Every structure is written in structure tokens, then in C-alpha cells.
């Protein structure tokens, strides 16, 4: 079935059906960021608390396809207690896996990424998405939403 089994791995369906870190935190002290995929109407809303430059808590609400919701759930698990710096790196590594090569990702950065040797872990399960280009936006929706939220902290 040309990659469909690779797309819909068990662990993805598990995250889809049993999303981790569902819910909403009070803002403030938490920060909020909302993302939207106009293609399919997928929505993700994140609330998160920052402490000492790290993500302390992160909660997710939203609705959408298995890929967008599983990706959000996996992301929540992956970024918990990570420094903002590390989260940014992880997001770059994730996007690289999704075949998204950002212009801002200069050679120097790439070295840093490997130096930090952050592993994608469970997130690797989403690799099958690459074969379905229209779904890449589903997989990256939550990450982009989080990055926007982190950018807004500085703004």
C-alpha cells in the first residue's frame, strides 16, 4: 500500500486516540499560541509555562487529522522540561526529517544540532509523512505554533 502502513504506524494512531498532555493552562502565568492549517482546517492551541528558560508545562487542545494531533501529542512529550534553545534545535531537526530545509539553517547551525545530539526518539515515527507531501504541514503544525509562541516571548 505504497507507504500507508509506514504513515499510519501504531504509535501514531495511539497518540491520535490517546493524546498526551491535553488541556489548557491558565494564562497568565502560561503563554498561549494558536495554529491553523487552512488546507484541512486542523487546529492546535498550545498553552505553556516557561521557567528558567525551559518549558515547564505544555498543554494542548485542538482538532484535526491523526497526523496533526499525534504530532502535537508527541511534541508535547518531547519538549517537556527542555530549554528553549534545545526546543528550537529539536524543531529544526524535526523539520529536517520532514525534508524542510530552512534558509536560516546555516552550516554552523547544523553542526550545533549534531553537537547537541538531541535525539528525535518517538518523533521518528512520523518519518513516513515525507512520502505524502501534502501531509507535511499537518505534521509541522504544532511545531510551528510552538515556535511562534516562543518568538512572541521575545517580541
Amino acid at each position: 500500500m505504497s507507504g500507508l502502513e509506514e504513515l499510519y504506524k501504531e504509535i501514531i494512531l495511539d497518540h491520535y486516540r490517546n493524546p498526551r498532555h491535553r488541556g489548557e493552562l491558565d494564562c497568565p502565568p502560561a503563554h498561549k499560541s494558536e495554529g491553523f492549517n487552512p488546507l484541512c482546517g486542523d487546529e492546535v492551541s498550545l498553552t505553556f509555562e516557561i521557567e528558567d528558560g525551559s518549558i515547564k508545562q505544555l498543554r494542548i487542545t485542538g482538532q484535526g487529522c491523526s497526523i496533526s494531533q499525534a504530532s502535537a501529542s508527541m511534541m508535547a512529550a518531547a519538549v517537556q522540561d527542555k530549554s528553549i534553545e534545545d526546543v528550537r534545535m529539536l524543531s529544526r531537526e524535526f523539520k529536517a526529517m520532514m525534508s524542510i530545509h530552512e534558509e536560516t539553517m546555516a552550516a554552523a547551525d547544523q553542526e550545533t544540532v549534531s553537537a547537541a545530539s538531541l535525539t528525535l526518539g518517538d518523533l521518528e515515527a512520523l518519518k513516513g509523512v515525507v512520502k505524502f507531501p501534502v501531509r507535511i504541514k499537518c505534521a509541522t503544525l504544532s511545531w510551528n505554533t510552538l515556535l511562534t509562541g516562543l518568538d512572541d516571548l521575545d517580541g
Partner: protein
Amino acid sequence: MTLPSDLKDRFPLLSQMVHGHQIVYLDSAASSQKPASVIDAMNNYYRTINANVHRGAYEIAAQATEEMEQARTRIATFIGSDSPNEVVFTKNATESFNLIARSWGGNALSQGDAVLITDMEHHANIVPWQILSAEKGFEIRWLPLTPEGLLDLSHLDQLLDGVKMVSITAMSNVLGTLNPVAEIAERAHAAGALVAVDGSQYVPHLPTDVQELNADLLCFTGHKMCGPTGIGVLWGREEILDSMPPFLGGGEMILDVRRDGFTPNELPHKFEAGTPPIAEIIGLGAAVDFLSSLGMDNIRQHEITLTDYALRSLKDRYGEELVIHGPSDPAQRGGVVSLQYRDIHPHDLSQVLDQRGICIRAGHHCAKPLMKELGVGATSRASFYLYNNEADVDALVDSLELAGELFSV
């Protein structure tokens, strides 16, 4: 009379292969495929008579003008209009609604007035009113639905109080529901309101007669009725269009331009600013010829039969695992089937079906207020047209099983 069985052969795209399967196109409610005769009509235009219209004295310009205006006349006839002057060309149904809202509404509506739309409208018949309402302060009122997805007319007369325009779809692009336009129009007229009809899903699929519909204005779009992209229609009763100020300004829509102002042209040119979509108008003329040659009654009959077959096949095979939105009687609906299969998200379902070459649409179908009423974020929608057959329905029904297996882990 039934439709010829070789209709697929007249649509070049339908012989395409997708992921190793011959394509099964079930998304005609989003956009229909085009017969070779329509594609060829546009080719011929570009290869033999391409020239700007209405202002050229030379041969090919005269021919281009003639072909375009003949297409207008045939399109007028196709919908039972008295006069080609009542047929205004726009770029799509969406522009037609914006024209109505801005030109008619900008003139007629102010605080204290109301426009009545329904809970099943496409964004094209919602947002133009919202934009104008933000400026003018009139009220937008919503006609509710019954649980089965029909319009609930039980409070219509109350809802009509103070309404100057009733703007409703003749057929829902999500539920398939066919609405009692003529009846609503009669009550609306009695209450002193005008009636605009969204025929985007209706005109391509059912015999259309604007007199029978009892409509004052009708919007539809070329690409859903075997025609090209880039062309829409606004039909309106001559005296209503006459009373409306111009919409877009520029060439063609004027009789005279002076420094201190302009004199608008006559109908239909008053509403057609700039170089018209000439090839597209000619293409839509060819589409109307194609549909007429098959017979709209036959097309409608074919779709009733196919929809009936689809509803039964789906129910028989999947029973409670499947929710199908909209009326259950095929005679009360068009060939649009929105469904929810187990807990599989529509986007995932459509992805899985695509691997078998089956094209269905997943999403909110530009009807977010309706999605909210249905309590869903999106639906999977299969929609039929004259070229679909029972084998297409079988492919759809079979492939749900594949999706079910993938998601049963």
C-alpha cells in the same frame, strides 16, 4: 432516457492513472471534469479568432464578439431567462455574490434592515454580507436546520420580519439537501424581500428555470458544470439589475467617461468591467451545449439512481460504523454524500482513498457555520456527476474497508 454509457471517454482526465489505478473522480462538487468539447472550444478560440471583443471592427474581433454573445444567449436559455441582458459574467459564483452584496446591498441596506441566509450556506453567501454588514450595520439572520438537514421553515414568517433580502442555496454542497426555493421565495416576496439563490450546486445537476425557482437573482459558477475555471454567472431580473449601481469600474462598463464622472453602460455590460473572460465564456457556452445535449432531466435521473445506490451500499456494508449527513431520501438531495467513518479523520480517509486513485474531498467545504451545527470539524465528501457510475461507487465502498484495516491497529 438514460445517459450514454461511454460518457467517461469524453472526459480526457478520467483516463488518467493515479498511483497505478485508473482515477475515480468523486469530487465534482468541488470542481467538475471537462469534456473534450469544452477544452476544444477554448482551443479553437485561441487558435483561430482570439481578439479583444466589442471594440474591434476587424474580422476576428467581430467573430470573437459574436461567439461570446452567442454563448451568453445560450446560457440565458439554459436557465430559462427571458433575455441575454440578464446574464452577467463574473469570475466565479463568489464574485457574483459580492456583486449582489456590494451593488444591491450597498444601496439598499442600512441599520434596522436584515438579510436572511441559512445555516447551510457556503462562505460565498456569508462573508460578502458580513463585510457589508460591518459597514452598514444591518442584521444577518440565519434560517435553522432540522436534525435531518432540511431547512426548518416553521418560523420562517417571523424570521422574515424586516428582511429585505433572502439569500439561500438551492442545494447544499455538504448535505446535498435540495431546498424548497420557490416556496421560500413566495413567502419572501409576500414579506417584501428579494430572493437571491446560490445555484452553484444546483444549476450543474438539475433542470433550472429561474421563473419556476421564483428567484430574483441567481449565482453559479462555470467550473462545477463542465466549464472552465475563471467564469461565473450572475443572473438577475432585468429591472433589478437595472436598478443596481455598477460594481467594478473600468473599460466596457461605461458609455462615457469625463473628468467629472462617468455614464454607465447598459445591461449586461454595466457589470462587466475590463476585458471579459472571453475564452472562458465560450467554454461555458460549450459546456451548456454539452449538458443540454445529454438532457438535464437525464442527468438528474442518473444522479438520483447513483446516489440511491451509494447510500444503500454504504449502509448495507458499514451500518452503524458510518454516519451519513443530510436527508436519506435520494429524491430530496443531490449527489453529494458527506460521511463520517468510525473515528477516522476525513483528511486521513481521503489520503488512504487517494492511494487507490479515488478522489474525495475532506474538510469544512467552505461551510464552517454548518460544520459547527453538525458538531464536526470536517467531513469526508464524495460527490457524483454525469460521468460517474456504479463501479465508481463500488470502488468507494470497498476502499473504506482498507481505511478501516489501517486504523484498526
